[in-house]
């Protein structure tokens, strides 16, 4: 193979490689300690961007998300535990800032929804199944028996096949 072709092939393959979609593209934002940076990213993925609301702060390009990424990194660099960083943001922005909301009375319904849906489905299945139990057909009346006899058929046949 010619080198020019090879080079083109390599370029093409490089384009196909999935690119990381994290918004933290600015190296100045990153912590110098890779372990701390990894913690900051994991934590940031659990924090909702309050501006876009359906993205984490790690995914969002919003300015507030950038500020919050910096806050997370500053606190981690200062020696805060993950729990302390989460509490810091939770105290300011409430449950909504946590993409995984805490279990509390106000969120009980939210957490219980899958269980409720499953139980409802199970109840539906059981109910339908009970109803599907075949009911024995009513015995033929004297009149019907007479008609069957007139047609030359045995008396207790054909009632259910309809």
């Amino acid at each position, binding site marked *: 193979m010619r080198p020019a072709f090879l080079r083109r092939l390599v370029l093409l393959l490089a384009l196909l490689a999935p690119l990381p979609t994290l918004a933290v593209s600015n190296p100045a934002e990153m912590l110098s300690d890779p372990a701390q940076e990894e913690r900051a990213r994991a934590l940031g993925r659990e924090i909702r961007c*309050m*501006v876009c*609301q359906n993205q984490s702060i790690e995914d969002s390009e919003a*300015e*507030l998300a950038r*500020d*919050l990424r910096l*806050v997370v990194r500053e606190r981690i660099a200062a020696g805060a535990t993950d729990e302390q960083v989460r509490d810091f943001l*939770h*105290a*300011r*922005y*409430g*449950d*909504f800032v946590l993409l995984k909301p805490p279990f509390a009375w106000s969120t009980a319904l939210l957490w219980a929804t899958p269980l409720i849906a499953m139980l409802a489905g199970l109840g539906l299945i059981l109910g339908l199944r009970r*109803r599907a139990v075949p009911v024995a057909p009513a015995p033929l009346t004297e009149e019907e028996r007479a008609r069957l006899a007139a047609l030359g058929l045995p008396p207790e046949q054909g009632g259910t096949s309809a």
Partner: protein
Amino acid sequence: MTPASRRALLFAPFALAAAGGLGFYAVLRGMRTGEYNPRGVPSALLGRRAPDFILPPLEESGVPPVTSADLANLPGPVLVNFWASWCVPCIIEHPQLMRLSREGVPVFGIAYKDRPEDSRRFLRQHGNPFARLSRDEPGRVAIDWGVYGVPETYLLDRQGIIRWRYAGPITSDTLQADLRPLLRRYAG
């Protein structure tokens, strides 16, 4: 299943669709009248004291800065308004702030991520409703307040406890329906 209940079941999808339609209509109506804000999030600071902060004044604005000390032992309720000259809804809101200020309600302003000269130009152009004014260019004090966009307005009672937070521009409807009753309630 009896034929009657089977026939009733036939209408179930229609009833469900009608209920969905009604719900959707209610949501749209609420959004139009401002009763329902899909992006509205309750503040985590309600019922708590305003956070401590130190911010520089907006120089040459002619009013003193906002300090934490100004937000306690107040003669009456005050409003703290986060705003910016680059924020379009802030222009919509501005006449209501001017109105409140004329009526003697103390409105304290914090300019969020705004260059001082831009803030000053905005106030020259639209008037200055703020009795006190500071600026938060890095936006870090705003994070302590749980601000996630401008404009945002906080109502503090006389003890400096945050009683109400409104994210978005205060319109004359919001002023009449929400803010005035609150100002009366916390006036005593």
